[in-house]
């Protein structure tokens, strides 16, 4: 299960556990450690798996998972023992990077009882390694401390032609009774098997995702076996949907007969809501110090909304993100008092302190648990598999929400203003784009309410870029560009500028121009409303670009699209490792962007050719551009609207063609011809 903070690690397929070759290898090399024992024998299950004959696979197949078996034994006291064993045939050298070892996360509640691994050489010899050969390490980060550690073993001699295998047993004392069985991998899987044993009187549910439902065999009372065969590998693609939404897996939930253990069952969103509400009880109590700070902050604020804004602003700018998560601390926030005293915390800590501060002004708020990966939460499958906590602020009657785009209506709780205190740059009224178009669980005293966080309309994420430029007969271009940004384009830019010292901010303009102009000089730059998150961010910059237009004979050639790119780098997403893309593409947000460029042309030049107008549209986006010349001024105007953010696989050709039209427009050139004054007059 993942912990609830932004920087969590994902569980997933076998490959995620089989990635230690580099780390463990380096450490073992440094330590000179090796106690692998040659001449051992492999367990029967591994020997049998290794002997199977394989069908033909594509030549770039790194490895084949011969067997991936998970045996879960639930004990009547709620402890769960999981035995995981796998056999992998290494096909290519790259397999050593991905399948060179086994790494298992553990903490005080998930103890590793045993860990063993084997390599079967092509000649049948077996090299075995065990727990005493393992290395143990933690996760260090500038942003978090947690008590999760990793135990890792490197398979000896893990080269093509070998079969490697491992087996470990882990005891888990879960906070809730839910389990995931991941049976698909980045490499093909021959056989994946789940064996489940539950105590007498316990019930369970099994839900299948991204795979047809299979019925279990029951070889013994309270024992259930599922098996799937010949699953294709899922190749990782850039900007693909989350693994959970593409790979086959089964979700298990246990329902004990003992009523005392029932609270750990997550059969419904209500159950999860109650569990979390109980876990966070009294965490949001405002101390006198907090109340004093709230009074101080809101002293000059007029009206409830202004007071809310003051507090959300304080939380974004003053409370540093740092997560300390020990044990249940992966889910349970620190108390508001602790967070306030230390002035740092993770997402749930920040939500907790903000909630306490809001209470101090009489505003109720609710935790919202959500995932930063769009589409990961399935509203039909109640689960605690989230990675982030934000806040829903209940808006009192009388507050005008016209400019608050993040308001949702909950039938029971009323108008809820969704706000992410962890994101330092997205202002009140907006939602970070990575949280939009996703399901989230609002935690209320009566349980959890699953809600759809909307995709904000394109007009809320706006970029308007206007340019007044002048071209000389020698092709030099100079002038001024102004950008107006709000919504996501403003937050992204604010983040970039505010992370730098004022003296370094000019370099951002410089680097931006450098993406499009081969030679230029920035002659001025300024920013407006950088710190006023609720206001339109403005960027003004002036430049001089020598020889922007190229001379060719008596022609002067220039691209009217002087700066700015509209997603054409995504064109590289459609082919992955020389093969057509298999999965959907996601844009970050819906957006509306317009460029209006006026270039005053040198006297004596007339158009010899202008870019053709472009009108491109598809179900997800629209683009149009037009270039005209009037009164010696070249006018280039284009508009891009991204209307929907997830483009499914069957629509990829459509969006690719759309982006190709934009790319062609961006490189399109205007050709100007020098004419004699008389000819010019005639024209």
């Amino acid at each position: 299960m993942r912990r609830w903070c932004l920087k969590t690690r994902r569980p997933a397929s076998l490959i995620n556990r089989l990635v230690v070759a580099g780390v463990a290898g380096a450490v073992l090399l440094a330590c000179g450690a090796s106690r692998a024992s040659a001449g051992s024998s492999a367990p029967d299950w591994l020997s049998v798996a290794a002997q199977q004959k394989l069908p033909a696979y594509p030549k770039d197949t790194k490895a084949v998972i011969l067997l991936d078996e998970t045996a879960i034994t639930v004990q009547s006291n709620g402890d769960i023992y999981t035995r995981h064993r796998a056999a992998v045939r290494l096909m290519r050298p790259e397999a050593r990077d991905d399948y060179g070892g086994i790494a298992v996360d553990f903490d005080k509640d998930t103890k590793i009882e045993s860990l063993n691994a084997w390599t079967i050489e092509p000649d049948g010899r077996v090299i075995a390694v065990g727990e005493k050969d393992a290395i143990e390490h933690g996760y260090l980060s500038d942003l978090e401390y947690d008590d999760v550690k990793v135990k890792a073993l490197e398979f000896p001699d893990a080269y093509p032609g070998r079969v490697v295998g491992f087996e470990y047993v882990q005891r888990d004392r879960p906070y809730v009774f839910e389990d995931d069985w991941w049976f698909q991998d980045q490499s093909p899987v021959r056989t994946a098997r789940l064996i489940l044993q539950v105590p007498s009187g316990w019930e369970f549910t099994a839900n299948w995702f991204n795979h047809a439902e299979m019925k279990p065999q029951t070889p013994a009372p309270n024992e259930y076996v599922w098996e799937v065969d010949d699953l294709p590998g899922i190749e990782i693609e850039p900007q693909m949907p989350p693994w959970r939404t593409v790979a086959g897996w089964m979700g298990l939930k246990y329902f004990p007969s003992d009523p005392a253990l029932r609270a750990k069952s997550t059969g419904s969103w209500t159950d999860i809501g109650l569990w979390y509400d109980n876990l966070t009880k009294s965490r949001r109590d405002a101390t006198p110090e907090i109340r004093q700070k709230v009074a101080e902050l809101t002293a000059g604020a007029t009206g409830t909304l202004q007071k809310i804004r003051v507090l959300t602003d304080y939380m974004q700018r003053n409370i540093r993100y740092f997560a300390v998560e020990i044990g249940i601390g992966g889910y349970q926030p620190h108390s508001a008092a602790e967070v306030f005293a230390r002035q740092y915390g993770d997402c749930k800590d920040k939500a907790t302190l903000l909630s306490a501060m809001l209470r101090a002004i009489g505003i109720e708020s609710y935790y919202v648990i959500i995932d930063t990966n769009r589409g990961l939460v399935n509203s039909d499958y109640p689960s605690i598999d989230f990675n982030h906590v934000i806040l829903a602020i209940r808006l009192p009657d009388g507050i005008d929400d016209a400019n608050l785009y993040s308001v949702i209506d909950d039938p029971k709780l009323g108008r809820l203003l969704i706000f992410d205190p962890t994101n330092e740059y997205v202002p009140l009224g907006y939602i970070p784009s990575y949280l939009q178009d996703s399901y989230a669980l609002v935690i209320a005293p009566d349980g959890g309410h699953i809600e759809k966080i909307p995709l904000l309309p394109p007009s809320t994420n706006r970029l308007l870029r206007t340019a007044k430029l002048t071209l000389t007969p020698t092709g030099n271009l100079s002038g001024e560009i102004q950008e107006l940004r709000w919504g996501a384009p403003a937050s992204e830019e604010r983040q970039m500028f505010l992370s730098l010292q004022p003296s370094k901010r000019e370099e951002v303009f410089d680097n931006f121009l450098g993406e499009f102009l081969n030679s230029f000089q920035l002659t001025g730059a300024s920013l407006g409303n950088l710190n006023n998150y609720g206001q339109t961010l403005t960027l003004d910059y002036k430049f001089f670009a020598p020889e922007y237009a190229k001379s060719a004979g008596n022609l002067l050639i220039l691209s009217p699209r002087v700066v700015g790119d509209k997603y054409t780098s995504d064109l590289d997403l459609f082919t992955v490792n020389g093969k057509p893309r298999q999965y959907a593409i996601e844009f970050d947000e819906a957006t509306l962007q317009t460029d209006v460029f006026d270039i005053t042309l040198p006297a004596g030049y007339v158009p010899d050719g202008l870019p053709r107008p472009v009108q491109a549209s598809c179900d997800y986006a629209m683009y149009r551009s037009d270039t005209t010349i009037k009164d010696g001024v070249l006018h280039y105007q284009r508009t891009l609207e991204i209307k929907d953010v997830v483009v499914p696989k069957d629509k990829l050709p459509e969006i690719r063609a759309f982006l190709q039209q934009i790319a062609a427009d961006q490189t399109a050139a205007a050709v100007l011809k020098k004419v004699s004054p008389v000819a010019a007059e005639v024209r």
Partner: protein
Amino acid sequence: MNRILRCSSQVIVVAAVILMARVMPAFATVGWLPVSADDLALKDNPKEPGADAMILYREVTVDARKANISGDSLEEYVRIKIFTQAGTKYGHIEIPYDQSFETIPYAGGRTILPDGTIKDFDGQVLNSTLVRTGGVEYFAKTFTLPDVQPGCIIEYRYDRQARPGWLHDEGWTLSSNMYTREAHFTYYPNDIFDQAGYHAQYRPYLLPAGAKMKENADHSYAMELHDIAAIVDEPLMPPKAAMEPSVEFYYVTPGEPDPTDPPTKFWSHYAKQWSGEISHFTDKKDALNQEISKILSAGDSPEMKLRKIYARVEQIRNLSMEDYRTQKETKAEDLKPDGNVADVLERGYATGHQINLTFIGLARAAGFDATEVFVAPRNTSLFIPNQNDIGELSAELVWVKAGSQEYYLDPSARYFPFGVLPWYESEAGGIRVDGHTPTIITTPNPSSSQATIVRTANLTLQPDNSISATVQIDFTGLEGGMLRYSDRKDDQTGRTKDLESRIKDWLPIGSEFSITKIDDWDDIEKPLRVEGTLKLASYGSTASRDMLLPLDIFQATQAGDFAEQTRHNAVYFQYPYQEIDTITVNPPPGYKIEAMPKPQKIDLKAAVYDITVASQGNSVEVNRHLTIDGVLFAKEAYPTFRAFFGLVRTNDNAQMVLENTQTGQLN
């Protein structure tokens, strides 16, 4: 391997030197220094503006006086001014330590808010596991200071205490990833070592101007420094190891060469030792002569003989190029240690060092003057002969002379043609073992002609602006060697994938490039040749009846390394190189050339570029040549290179105009 008793984390102090323990006074607890109003008000570093944070004060004290009894100790005190939100990350402190030989008895800190309010750290110092395995236990003490925000000052200190009889790495790293305004370093040597004949000495590396070592009456060493620049990560920067100022302390072992000796005396000791090792390993005349008779012919020229010997030793399986093997894996494969050249030639496998010695043995057997050379590889160190630091010489190669011609070769590098050294071994200083005499040498400067990328593309253009093309790329000399080395563990599929990815980086966005053939992967003397096909849905642009095409389809990727306006470091190309492009463009039927850009040439001596375009019947041929001829350039040259690559990009993208003669007039 360094034969000096250099103190390190893994060096236990020998019992013999634990003679007379003398109780030394404990360090007085370091309190926090007063905070000035000026520092609280500071908004940026006036001497190096723009950073996220700077070190206002740093104090490091290493005390080895009690190493025999309780181990040595290290105390560090750091005060940092935070300027930006990004700088708040310094509020989280991590102190890694090796539990098997040291402890962190104290760690703490505090935050001073911009208004002067002090917030002490009163939380728990947490312990994180870095690595734990079979006796090795690396942990980190971590803690997060409260209320860290831009404008505040944070400070922390910690003590490190080695276990009895252990020493830390005895030295000072003077610089940091932040600018340091003031720093104090102190070292108390172990005077009991001194009485046992192990004299403490120090070596300074790249000290900032004005830095002076002070030797105090109590035998301690101290240094006070001001305004130490941060080492900023930038593309094309010199290796960090060659930039980092430091001081290393060591103890001279009786009977071993003394680094304070004159260099001639110091290096002679090693030359004698190395010479003996060469003689011992190659002392198998029969085996060598028998091998020479097999591989050389009477009519071979001297260079031909050397080439044949080079080719022969390249056939030896190079164990140093393979993954680390455990003892069990080595045993399972029945690999025996080679004791001499006869073993190597018979068994067919050897370490890189042994392969070089085998080359020397064969060359000597063929009548050449040949010997071993130890150099400081440019990617990790600098050779300063007078420092008498054998640790700098971490790479080895061979020198051989044929008539008046001298050759520096590295057969152990495996993937580099005869006469071509890996880039980090070229223009590198070191010691040549001339019998018992050490000769200080610098290996030859690399030449740009030894590292060329020759790209040829034949483009067929369609009326809809799409193109299909055949592409051929030759990676010669060093370029081929580097690729062969980096992809040595891959199979054909992996190499193809890697090369396609590298080549795609040169091509316009949306390009579909597939390799059809890779030639001469195993023949290191030949260029590595890659052939492939390219498809692009839209190349260039149209304007009414005109079609406009950039001259070179290969993008100048170097411009990305010069994107930043400001520069902190010198410009460092690892090696000189050339790019030679020939692009043939076949226009669609009905199109003729309306205009072509003029030839362009930019000659900065160290960087030369020229591009020409000419019509060849119905097609157009573009020839482009880029040469970088030098390695290290002063920081002041950065704007010149930035402008140069800007112009390269401009001229690469200069457009030829093709006119459609079959369409009508202007729109």
